[in-house]
């Protein structure tokens, strides 16, 4: 009798573990809802379509940069160059607005430059086996330095964020839908479908899970990695364009402060930094949690320093919960 109860309880605990391990998005959405309820209790009436609009709008660039971290972390890597690449893309676009080709050309050129940076990173990581942390760190120095040089060379000093980006980054459609969703939704679909339904996505998981076995089964890891880092740089560039539109500024260090939160969003979202486990759905909720948390801490009236401390503590607690549940070391 009592043994049966124990078994039942054990099964219950195991089911919870399984839920956390296989569908981390469900408890994450729960955490997000709890945060939203708390913020509504703290500041009654604040939660409204307009509020949600603002939260989503500020989350979109972070969510896109966190996408770079998610896909690179799946292979056991990390992309610390997202800040430099994103800022550079927004900045170069702003300087080229008045070039003959106009805005489309400016955006195209800056995204191509971003992908070139990603190509170099990918060759370093994939072919020369440089540790992704070092490779992307070095690339961020190179990109930031070159962007600074460009800043001195260009006549336009980055005052001209094109209207179309300002619209995409900060406008509202139909009363409460942020325009940046026009960019985010396709990006999300590409990443989600790419990771779940394509062979390429499975290769990313495989490389992160067991690189040697993947190589022995005939996968050309170096090609996969080069494509991965080019795509990551492209994503970072798109995120940078939206961020410069959102803030209506273009500077070569604009996105630097988003690098660490982007890693945090991916980690909270259940992607393992060791590779092989995770997904973009969790990352999106993770990015939303970070934004709502920031809003909550502001609403409570905590000063900036205390906010940072709570922020850090929550990352540790969530990551520790994952480690406990999944049993990874």
């Amino acid at each position, binding site marked *: 009798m009592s043994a049966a109860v124990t078994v039942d309880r054990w099964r219950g605990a195991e089911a919870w573990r399984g839920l956390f391990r296989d569908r981390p998005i469900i408890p994450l959405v729960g955490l997000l809802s709890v945060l939203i309820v708390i913020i509504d209790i703290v500041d009654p009436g604040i939660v409204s379509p307009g509020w949600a609009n603002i939260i989503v709008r500020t989350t979109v660039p972070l969510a896109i940069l966190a996408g770079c971290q998610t896909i690179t972390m799946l292979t056991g890597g990390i992309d610390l160059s997202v800040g430099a690449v994103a800022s550079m893309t927004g900045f170069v676009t702003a300087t080229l607005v008045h070039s003959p080709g106009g805005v489309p050309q400016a955006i195209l050129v800056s995204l191509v430059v971003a992908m070139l940076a990603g190509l170099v990173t990918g060759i370093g990581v994939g072919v020369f086996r440089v540790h992704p942390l070092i490779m992307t760190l070095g690339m961020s*120095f*190179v990109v930031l*330095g070159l962007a*600074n040089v460009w800043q001195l060379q260009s006549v336009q000093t980055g005052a001209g964020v094109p209207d179309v980006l300002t619209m995409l980054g900060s406008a509202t459609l139909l009363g409460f839908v942020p325009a940046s969703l026009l960019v985010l939704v396709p990006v999300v679909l590409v990443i989600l479908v790419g990771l779940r339904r394509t062979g390429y996505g499975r290769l990313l998981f495989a490389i992160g899970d067991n690189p040697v076995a993947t190589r022995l089964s005939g996968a050309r890891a170096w090609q996969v990695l080069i494509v991965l880092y080019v795509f990551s740089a492209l994503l970072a560039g798109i995120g940078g364009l939206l961020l410069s539109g959102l803030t209506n500024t273009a500077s070569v260090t604009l996105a630097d402060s988003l690098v660490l939160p982007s890693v945090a969003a991916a980690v909270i979202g259940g992607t393992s930094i*060791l590779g092989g486990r995770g997904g973009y759905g969790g990352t999106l909720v993770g990015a939303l949690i970070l934004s709502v948390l920031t809003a909550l801490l502001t609403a409570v009236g905590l000063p900036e320093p205390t906010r*940072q401390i709570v922020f*850090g*503590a929550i990352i540790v607690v969530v*990551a520790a919960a*994952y480690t406990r549940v999944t049993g990874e070391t």
Partner: protein
Amino acid sequence: MSATAAPIEGTGSRPADAIAAWARRNAWMLSLLALLVGLLVFTKLIQPRYGPIPVQGLGTSILPLALAAVAQAVIVISGGIDLSIGSMMALTSVVAASLMDNQSDATGVAVVVGVLALGLVLGGINGAVVVGTRVPDIVVTLAMSFVWAGFALLVRSSPGGGAASWLQGLAVGSLGNEWIPRAAVVLIVVVSVIWFPLVRSRLGLSMYAIGSNRLAAFRSGVPVGRTKFLAYAITGLFAALGGLSLTASTGIGTPIPGPYTLLSVAAVVLGGVSLAGGRGGVFGPIVGVVVLQLIQTDMSFLSLDSNLALVAQGVILIGVVMVGSVIELRRSRG
């Protein structure tokens, strides 16, 4: 590989063989020193007036980053990584500057001792969280970097405070010969006093052991958790020294972390410490820091855009690591 294949009586019998073996073992450090000497000669060539005063300035300017690099080296050797070094330096620096403001020299000594103890505690907390939660080091220390930076802002919301005059004196000027920066002497003495007893102790050996193969170390009876915890504490101690050097060289405390965390990772890798752990020392990273700083100096002498220095630093970092990993790959294949 070839060294182990050679007959044992062959090695050491001829001094040339012994020297060649020693050179092979320390190839990375020797190439790095050659790079440094080359850079120094190049500096002298492009700027014939490069003399004692700039050398003293070089000593002062590298001090915080060199200590950050040593801090990073300790934990990377032990198989971890600490992304909170910059924040710990900011926190210890503002604490020191706030407590030393308008105080006597004797109080200054007490403050320095207290701040070093604080560094041990901060690093110890990092280590305890890493060991206790088993969350990857990089995630924990990334999160802790927010926490320590937040505390730094709580201590001082804006740059300010003061530093004891003897502490400021340690970071500038020369010692004995005008070519020997006092900061360099302080750096070497402080690092040697902590590092040499450490590597010769059981703890030092355990640190290399858990860094190179955690499981093998565990099975040989090395207390893995305790060693990792102590390694983080020592990293915190060096970060506190870095924070004190910031206060000493600027005379104030700044709550916003400098670029030291990521640059320390760069310097460590440049200095021949493997990110996989278990290999390298603390003096390679110091040479790496001098190289990074000299590149910047040379760029300004060549009246090139100082931003190109950043590009050059990135290229050298990537290039050096690339060459290193290609050599490694060829060695493992051949």
